[in-house]
C-alpha cells in the first residue's frame, strides 16, 4: 500500500517534478546574487534614506527594498523614467536595475510550464505529489533500513535502489521544506488558503492638504528603521491631499505628507506572516544560503525520479500472469506467495507451472489470501516468501501472521517453507524463518525443512526443486532464471592444479576475454554456464578487468555439473559466461586514514582476496587469514602472495593447515592474534570473509567471543562476506 502510494503518483508526476526541480535549482541562485547588490545594513531610518534618494533623483515615485536588502528607486522626470539600485548611505544610483531574462524565463516555466492556469494546476499537483512521495518515502526508508534508529545506516541491495536510498537521505529535508512550502503557495494562489494579502487599507478620511514638509522631517518615516522597509510610495506630485504609502515587514500604513503622522496603520495578519515565512523558505528570498541549500537538494530530484522509475519498471517486468490456476478447494498442492518486488512470484509461478505440467492440481495465491478452511483436498502447502528490508513481511504477506493467529485447528496437509533473501542484510530471510517458527509453534507438520535462497540463485532453486520432487514422488526440473544477461565467450589461457592425496582437487584458472566484455573488479562474480545446463554457477573473481585476464579458483565437487567441467578444460577451450556485479563485496575505499583490512577465508575463498591485494595501490595495512589443507597440496597463489608480502601490498599472511600434525582452523589463528585484531578494529579496520558457510559461522562466533559486535559492523559495511 505504502509502495503504491509512493510510486504511482511519483511516476505520474516525474516529468513535471524534474522540470520544477531543475528550474527551481537555477532560480535558487537569485537571492544570493541579489544579496551581492545589497549594501551592508545600516542604522538609518527611512526618512534619512528617502531624503538622500530625493536629493539625488528628480521625481521619485517609489522606493523598494528586496528581502535581501537591495534598494531600488523608481523615478520619472523630464529626462525619462528610471529604476536604479542605489546606496542608502549616499542616495546615489549604483546601476540601473536590470530584470534577469534567465530567471524570468525559469520563473514562468516553474510556475506554469508556459501553459497558463492549466500549468499552474499541474505544478500544484506535482508539488503536492512530491510532498506525499517524501512522506511515504521516509516510512519506506525506515522500513527498509530496519527501523527509525537505523535511518542513517549504510544502505544495501542492488545498485539502483541503493542510489535511490542514498540520494533520498541526502536531500529529504530539503525536499520536505520545498514541497511543503510549494504546496502551500499553490493552495494560496488558488485561494484555498488565505495568504492575508487581500483587503486594502482604506484611504485616510482626512489629510492636512497643506504644504508638504521636507521628507526627512516626517516623524512616521523617522520612526521606521530602514531594515524594516519593503516599499515606500510617494504621493502624486501637485496633489497635496495625497499621502505616502509605506509597507514594512510588519504591516502597512498611510503617512500625511504635511504632518508626517501615520494616519492609518494595519499590522500584518497571522495569515500574511505565515505566507511570508513560507515564501521565504521556498524562494530563499531573505535567506539566501537556505535557497542555495534547497537548490542543491533539488538537483537530486531528477536522480530520484529516474531511479524510482527504473525500480518501478523492473517490478512491473517481474510480474507475470497466473495461468491454469486450480481452485483452492480442488487443489492437491497449495502455493502461497509472499513477494515485495514480484521476483518471488516469478519463482513460485514457475513451480506452479511445473507441477501443473505433471498433472498435479496446484493452487497459487498471495499469502495474504490465506484461507486454510477452503483447502479441502490439499495434501501439501508450500510457502514461498521473500523478506522485506531488515526482516519484515513483504507486501503480499503483510497480514499473514495475523490470519494464521486466528486459525487454531491443525490441518491434515503438511507444509514447507522456502525463503528468498539476500545475505547482505542482517536478517537474512528472516520472514521465512518467522513463518516456519509460527507454523511449527501452531503444531503444523512439516514435510520439507526450511530453506532459503540467496540473491535469486537459480541454482539453489533447482536444488531445492530436487528435494521437493523426492518428497512428492515427481520429476521436477526447476530452471527459472530472473533475467538473462548478455553472454560472452572466454578462452582458457592457464591452469594450475592442486590435490591432496589424489582427492580434494583444486584448480586456478585464467581466461582471456573479448574486448567488449563489461568492466569488473575482484570480488565480482563470473557466472559460468556449463554445457547442457541453462543455469549458471557463480565464482568469485580473483582479478580485475584491468589485469587483462579473468581468474577464478575452483574446487572439484563430486557429482557436480560445473566444477568437474572446469577441471577438465584444456588451454584454448572456450566457455560461456557473464559478469554478475557484487557491489557489496568490495573493500571500503582507502580513505585519508588508509584504514586496515582483515581478510578471512578458507580454501577457494582466497580468490577475491588475491585481487583485493593486487589492487592495494595505497599499500594500506592488509592482513590475510587463510585456512588450507596441507602445505604440499593446496598452496594456492603462493608465488604472488610471497611477492605481495615483499612489496608491502600485504602486511601479514597467516595460514592454518587442517591436514597436518597440530591441525588448525582459520578461526584458531584469529584467537591467537586476538590482541592484534582488537588493535586493528580500533583503527576502524574492515573485515572481509570469503569461503564456506561453516567456516564463516565459526569465524563469526570466534570474533563475537572477542567482543566484536558484528551486527553493528555490518550496518557500517565494516563486516562483509561472500559465503557459499
Amino acid at each position: 500500500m505504502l509502495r503504491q502510494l509512493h510510486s504511482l503518483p511519483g511516476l505520474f508526476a516525474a516529468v513535471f517534478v524534474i522540470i520544477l526541480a531543475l528550474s527551481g535549482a537555477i532560480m535558487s541562485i537569485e537571492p544570493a546574487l541579489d544579496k551581492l547588490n545589497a549594501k551592508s545594513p545600516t542604522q538609518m531610518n527611512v526618512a534619512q534614506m528617502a531624503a538622500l534618494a530625493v536629493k539625488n533623483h528628480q521625481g521619485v515615485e517609489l522606493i523598494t527594498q528586496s528581502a535581501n536588502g537591495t534598494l531600488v528607486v523608481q523615478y520619472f522626470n523630464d529626462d525619462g523614467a528610471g529604476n536604479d539600485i542605489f546606496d542608502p548611505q549616499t542616495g546615489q544610483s549604483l546601476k540601473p536595475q536590470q530584470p534577469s531574462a534567465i530567471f524570468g524565463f525559469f520563473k514562468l516555466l516553474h510556475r506554469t510550464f508556459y501553459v497558463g492556469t492549466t500549468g499552474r494546476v499541474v505544478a500544484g499537483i506535482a508539488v503536492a505529489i512530491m510532498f506525499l512521495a517524501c512522506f511515504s518515502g521516509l516510512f519506506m526508508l525506515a522500513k527498509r533500513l530496519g527501523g527509525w534508529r537505523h535511518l542513517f545506516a549504510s544502505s544495501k541491495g542492488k545498485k539502483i535502489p541503493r542510489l535511490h536510498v542514498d540520494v533520498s537521505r541526502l536531500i529529504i529535508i530539503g525536499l520536505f521544506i520545498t514541497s511543503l512550502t510549494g504546496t502551500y503557495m499553490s493552495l494560496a494562489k488558488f485561494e484555498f488558503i488565505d495568504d492575508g494579502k487581500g483587503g486594502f487599507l482604506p484611504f485616510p478620511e482626512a489629510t492636512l492638504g497643506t504644504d508638504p514638509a521636507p521628507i526627512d522631517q516626517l516623524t512616521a518615516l523617522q520612526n521606521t528603521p530602514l531594515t524594516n522597509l519593503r516599499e515606500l510610495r510617494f504621493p502624486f506630485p501637485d496633489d497635496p491631499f495625497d499621502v505616502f504609502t509605506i509597507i514594512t515587514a510588519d504591516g502597512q500604513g498611510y503617512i500625511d505628507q504635511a504632518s508626517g503622522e501615520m494616519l492609518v496603520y494595519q499590522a500584518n495578519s497571522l495569515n500574511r506572516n505565515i505566507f511570508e515565512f513560507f515564501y521565504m523558505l521556498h524562494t530563499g528570498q531573505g535567506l539566501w544560503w537556505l535557497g542555495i541549500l534547497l537548490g542543491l537538494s533539488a538537483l537530486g530530484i531528477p536522480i530520484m525520479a529516474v531511479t524510482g522509475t527504473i525500480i518501478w519498471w523492473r517490478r512491473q517486468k517481474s510480474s507475470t500472469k497466473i495461468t491454469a490456476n486450480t481452485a483452492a478447494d480442488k487443489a492437491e498442492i497449495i502455493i502461497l506467495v509472499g513477494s515485495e518486488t514480484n521476483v518471488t512470484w516469478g519463482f513460485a509461478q514457475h513451480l506452479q507451472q511445473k507441477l501443473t505440467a505433471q498433472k498435479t492440481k496446484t493452487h497459487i495465491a498471495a499469502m495474504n489470501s490465506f484461507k486454510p478452511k477452503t483447502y479441502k483436498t490439499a495434501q501439501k502447502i508450500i510457502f514461498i516468501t521473500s523478506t522485506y528490508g531488515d526482516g519484515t513481511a513483504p507486501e503480499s504477506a503483510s497480514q499473514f501472521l495475523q490470519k494464521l493467529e486466528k486459525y487454531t485447528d491443525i490441518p491434515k496437509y503438511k507444509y514447507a517453507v522456502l525463503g528468498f533473501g539476500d545475505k547482505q542484510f542482517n536478517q537474512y530471510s528472516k520472514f521465512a524463518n518467522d513463518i516456519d517458527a509460527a507454523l511449527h509453534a501452531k503444531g503444523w507438520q512439516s514435510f520439507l525443512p526450511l530453506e532459503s535462497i540467496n540473491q535469486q540463485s537459480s541454482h539453489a532453486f533447482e536444488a531445492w526443486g530436487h528435494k521437493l520432487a523426492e518428497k512428492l514422488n515427481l520429476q521436477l526440473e526447476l530452471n527459472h532464471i530472473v533475467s538473462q544477461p548478455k553472454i560472452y565467450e572466454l578462452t582458457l589461457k592457464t591452469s594450475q592444479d592442486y590435490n591432496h592425496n589424489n582427492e580434494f582437487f583444486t584448480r586456478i584458472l585464467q581466461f582471456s576475454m573479448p574486448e567488449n566484455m563489461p568492466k569488473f573488479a575482484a570480488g565480482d562474480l563470473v557466472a559460468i554456464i556449463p554445457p547442457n545446463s541453462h543455469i549458471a554457477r557463480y565464482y568469485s573473481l580473483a582479478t580485475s578487468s584491468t589485469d587483462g585476464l579473468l581468474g577464478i579458483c575452483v574446487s572439484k565437487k563430486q557429482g557436480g555439473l560445473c566444477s568437474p567441467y572446469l577441471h577438465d578444460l584444456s588451454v584454448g577451450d572456450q566457455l560461456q559466461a557473464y559478469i554478475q556485479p557484487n557491489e557489496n563485496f568490495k573493500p571500503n575505499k582507502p580513505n585519508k586514514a588508509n584504514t586496515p583490512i582483515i581478510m578471512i577465508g578458507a580454501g577457494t575463498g582466497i580468490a577475491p582476496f588475491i585481487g583485493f591485494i593486487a589492487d592495494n595501490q595505497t599499500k594500506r595495512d592488509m592482513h590475510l587469514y587463510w585456512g588450507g589443507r596441507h602445505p604440499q597440496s593446496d598452496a594456492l597463489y603462493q608465488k604472488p602472495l610471497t611477492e605481495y608480502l615483499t612489496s608491502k601490498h600485504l602486511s601479514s599472511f597467516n595460514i592454518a593447515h587442517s591436514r597436518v600434525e597440530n591441525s588448525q582452523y582459520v578461526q584458531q589463528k584469529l584467537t591467537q592474534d586476538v590482541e592484534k585484531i582488537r588493535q586493528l578494529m580500533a583503527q576502524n579496520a574492515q573485515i572481509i570473509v570469503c569461503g564456506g558457510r561453516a567456516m564463516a559461522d565459526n569465524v563469526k562466533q570466534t570474533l563475537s567471543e572477542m567482543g566484536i559486535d558484528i551486527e553493528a559492523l555490518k550496518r557500517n559495511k565494516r563486516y562483509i562476506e561472500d559465503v557459499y
Partner: protein
Amino acid sequence: MNKLAKILLISTAIWLPQIAEARNVTFDLTVKSYTGPGAYVVVYITRPDNQLHSTIWLNSKEEKYLPALMGWHRHALRQGVRVDGFSGASLGAGKSAKFSVNIPESLIDTGYKIQVDAAAEDQGIAAKDINIPLTSANANTTGKRGFITAFSMKM
C-alpha cells in the same frame, strides 16, 4: 470575496447605460517584450480635475495584484471604482490586447483624459504610462515609461 472585488463586479452591470449619445471607441495596446510572468494593465478615464471618472478595461480580478497598478489604484482607493471590461488573465510579454467601449459624447473633447497603468513582476510599475487627452482625433502613441510600446485609440 473581498470588498473591492464586490464593488468591481457590481459596478460592471451599472456602468454606462445605453445612452444614445455615445461613441464606440476601439483601443489597441501592446506591452513591451521581456522574459517573465505576464503584465497587468488598466485603462481608465480621468476628469478635468484629475479625479478618476471610470475604469474601462482591467485585466485582473485578483485583488492582491491591483496595488501594483499604482496610479489607478490610488484613485480607486480614494473614490471607489467602476469597471466596464475585464479580460481574464494577465497579458503575456510582448502581447497585444484590443477592445471597444461606448464612451459618452459628453466626455470627448471636454478635457477628460485616457490613462493606462501597467506592471509586471520584476519589471517595475508604470503608472500613467499613457496619459493622453480624450479627443475625437484618433491617437497613436507609445508609453512614456516604455511599458506600453504601442497604443491606439480609434473612434
